[in-house]
């Protein structure tokens, strides 16, 4: 069969063929990109290079940095026990998110489903904590966690039980991190649920119905049909969750300041402490670079391992 020719006349009319048009197009491209590029280079890219420079100095932030120390900051960070605790806490928050928070969000999304009466109501409520500011969430949970049963609701509920004792939620080094994680989950589960709801919506209902017709029960339907089809949504959600967990700051800083005795320190609070509390800006810069490298490495490796999370292919 003869191939149908692609309407060549119209193709010729496309822009970008004449040289004056090409010049005009290039000008447009330059002018349109310029604002974004300038802002991005000044406030995102340039700071990366600058912090690389300052990380090589012992610098208190006054006057020019002169006290060159080479890679000492980077080495000192790695041997600092508190940094390792922060790193471990990051891994802990990631693990807890993947094991508890995301499955919870997914389960709720499935429960809300696509046709439950009152679906929008539940979605609106569950997503609300995400919209409230982190300051607000932190202060609310600070109240709930108050160690005194006369003040903190959680302990008040605990002492109601026979033999129940008040727990010093935020001042016990073993409990503080799970407690902070609970607040994080309260704030963020709605976001992931929303992603899963959207993912579920994209699955054609016919596929699930076909499964049912073929005799699959709800569990088989979920594990063999729904879950695999949600693959790309899950990959995105995991990606965002890991990146978010690594940089937890406001909730932790307001609730515990990283304490007690660094038990809830995260990488971000660690950096903030050295940068803005102790004014060891060179050291803080080096921490920032470590964090950046961790995020970057994770993103690249994750992209390799999973066939491109959708969140990144978009750009």
């Amino acid at each position, binding site marked *: 069969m003869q191939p149908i020719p692609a309407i060549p006349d119209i193709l010729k*009319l*496309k822009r*970008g063929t004449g040289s004056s048009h090409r010049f005009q197009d290039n000008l*447009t*491209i330059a002018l349109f990109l310029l*604002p*974004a*590029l300038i*802002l*991005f280079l*000044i406030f*995102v*890219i340039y*700071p*990366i290079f600058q912090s690389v420079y*300052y990380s090589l100095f012992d610098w208190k932030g006054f006057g020019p940095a002169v006290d060159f120390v080479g890679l000492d900051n980077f080495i000192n960070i790695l041997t600092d026990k508190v940094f390792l605790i922060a790193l471990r806490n990051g891994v802990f928050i990631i693990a807890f998110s993947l094991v508890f928070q995301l499955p919870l969000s997914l389960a709720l999304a499935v*429960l809300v*489903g696509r046709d*439950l009466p*009152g679906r929008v109501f539940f*979605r609106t*409520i*569950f*997503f*609300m*904590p995400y*919209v*409230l*500011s*982190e*300051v*607000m969430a932190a202060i*609310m*949970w600070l*109240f*709930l966690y108050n160690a005194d049963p006369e*003040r903190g*609701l959680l302990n008040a509920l605990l002492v109601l039980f026979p033999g129940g004792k008040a727990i010093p939620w935020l001042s016990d080094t073993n409990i503080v991190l799970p407690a902070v994680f609970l607040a994080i989950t*309260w704030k963020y589960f709605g976001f992931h649920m*929303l*992603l899963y709801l959207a993912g579920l919506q*994209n699955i054609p209902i016919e596929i699930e119905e076909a499964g049912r017709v073929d005799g699959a029960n709800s569990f088989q339907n979920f594990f063999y049909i729904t879950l695999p089809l949600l693959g*790309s*949504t899950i990959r995105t959600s995991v990606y*965002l969750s890991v*990146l978010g967990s690594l*940089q937890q700051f406001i909730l932790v800083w307001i609730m515990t300041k990283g304490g007690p005795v660094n038990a809830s320190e995260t990488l*971000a609070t660690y950096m903030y402490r050295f*940068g803005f509390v102790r004014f060891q800006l060179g050291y803080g*810069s080096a*921490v*920032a670079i470590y964090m*950046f490298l961790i*995020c970057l490495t994770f*993103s690249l490796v994750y992209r390799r391992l999973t066939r491109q999370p959708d*969140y*990144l*292919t*978009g*750009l």
Partner: protein
Amino acid sequence: MTLPYSRPRWNTKKFVSRFIQYSVLSLIVVIVFVPLVMLIFGALKTRGEFMTRPYVVPIPPRWENIISILSHASFWLMLRNSLVVMVAATAGVLLVCSLAAFVFARMEFRSKPIFINLFTVGLMFPINVAILPVYFVLRQMDMIDKLWGVILVQIAFQLSGNIMILRGFFTAIPAELQDAAYMDGCTVFDFFWRILLPLARPALSAVAALTMIVSWNDLLVPLVVINNEKLWTLPLGTMQFQGQYGQDLAMISAFVALSAVPTIIFYLFAERQIVSGLTAGAVKG
């Protein structure tokens, strides 16, 4: 029953599964609401009442704390600062991102992949990681203690994600439209401004709603950039207020509850836009 086929068949199995569904979901609703309800309870009590009976419903409600905060100029000043930052950041994000997204979605040039990858770096360098390096730059540019500093940083760190969201929407607009416009003598800018942007209005409002929320709730950037009390934004003021009033939990509750009111009202009105923006960014890409 007159229309037997249009009604779902209510058998026991279905009833039980619905019952379980609603029970679990209601439980989560309660958990989500507990912190908020406690906050509102606290906000409507006096300091004394909060100490003696912290968990009971505030009957009658005491408006003293709310009124005393509202009659303070500083609260309104914070509200104003937050509004200024939010409006400017949102306008900036919309303008800058739609221009860039247009180029990435509808124009071809050789170095395009390089620029796209450059902006992808922004996704891996979130503001929580970048804050210290960004602080250096702001200091050099003499933008400390200026709302402009906050606004520009907020815009810069929202570029990557929003360019990506808008690019997705812009790509979806049929190419025939562009060809037709050019044949009719449109310049590229005409097409962008008169045809594409109006068509992309849902996407723009999604991006706007999302940016407004992020900007309004942002604490970290103001915390680092702003010292002057007169320039505090609402979240920064909330944090300082919490530090200052330490033990007066009723007063703090009132302040936090008040500062939540604009967010919740906005959320209830713009939920659709926020949701569609987030899911477009993360799911569709």
